[in-house]
């Protein structure tokens, strides 16, 4: 009774996560400059990993695996945005921003 439902939930999460991850990858290729690329990847990375790992968690049930998956998820959840922040900050400090901000990215958004 429960098992098919859990399977469906986990499949939906896995496919959704995979879709997000893939969209992020496409964004990393197609976006015009660093900051938009970061926008594409860091958001989808976080959401995509959450969904994929969540889908796996649903499949694993309650075990040591789930605990490890939760650990991975938490770690990604905290470190991904922080490294994105640090990267943007470093890029900005190095003077990358001005020449990119005026021409391309303003028009895009």
């Amino acid at each position, binding site marked *: 009774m429960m098992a098919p439902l859990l399977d469906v939930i986990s499949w939906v999460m896995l496919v959704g996560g995979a879709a997000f991850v893939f969209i992020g990858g496409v964004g990393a290729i197609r976006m015009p400059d660093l900051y938009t690329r970061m926008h594409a990847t860091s958001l989808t990375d976080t959401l995509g990993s959450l969904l994929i790992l969540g889908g796996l968690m649903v499949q694993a049930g309650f075990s040591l695996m789930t605990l490890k998956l939760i650990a991975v998820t938490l770690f990604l959840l*905290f*470190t991904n945005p*922080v490294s994105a922040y*640090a990267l943007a900050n470093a890029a900005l400090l190095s003077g990358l921003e001005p020449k990119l901000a005026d021409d391309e990215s303003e028009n895009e958004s």
Partner: protein
Amino acid sequence: MIEILSIFLLCLTVITAVAVIRARSLFTAVMLMGIFSLLMAAAFLLLDAADVALTEAAVGAGISTVLMLSALALTASKERVEHVRFGVAVIVCTVLAGAIFYATFDKPPLGDPNAPVHQHVAPEFFSITREEIGIPNVVTAILGSFRGYDTLGEVIVVLTAGIGVLFLIGGTAPMGQVSPSSGDQTIRGLRHHQPLRVIAKWAIPFIMIFAFYVQFHGEYSPGGGFQAGALFAAAIILYGLIEGHRRSVQVIPPAVLRAMAAGGALLYGAVGVVTMLMGGNFLEYRVLHENSTTAQQMGIILIEAGVGITVAGVLLAIFHAFAARDRA
């Protein structure tokens, strides 16, 4: 499915390797090397080598990138346009590649269970591990028990390399070599990034716990002294990156690191000497306890601890040597 994934990853690996050699900027090359290690480790995992993948991830992708970046900070970050001897190199490479390529056709296909490699010692390793050692991770059993001498040798090599690095760059830089960064201590490290500090302070204990898990759970799951040592070193390196080199030296002073590096190898050797004193051969764990299985497990845990301490000590000492050189 796994095969296709494996082939795909290996193709990416080759592309990355070409890019590493082609890259003009050394910094790019080092970063691509990190990606190369990452892909390689994933490929290892798909080839069933879980312990190797863990080692490659911790050591290859993590520590080696950090060390190369530290070395890069001390040297030039751009490669000069060079005049190279392409002709000879291309000929030599083509001939060699052709020869080895030809040789591969005589190799048994990948995964052939009847290949000569799988006939000789591996089955004995499994049966003896099952009967006498009783730990599920056969890799750890071989590392600690069957090939204990070899591992001792490797630990000594690691220790020797660490000593060599300390001899080469452990002291202070020669006079007149003071780099311009000496004045601005405040900017070194990522201390002024509050989010990074918060997350790192949360992450460091986590990494350390994971390192200890890898160390002491290494008999039951992928892991062992080498991986744990590298992960422990990575945790301290993270602290050093965030808080600056000076503070990380305060956490673990260089003298402690040297003691760790030597002490781990000493612990390993001492286990061997103790077994000799108790009437066995060098590193013959059987004499440690009346129950032979317990004795083997005791021996493996002890020498894995020695390995872990040495690896952590040496890697951290090397990192500190590079970082200290940078500020000198």
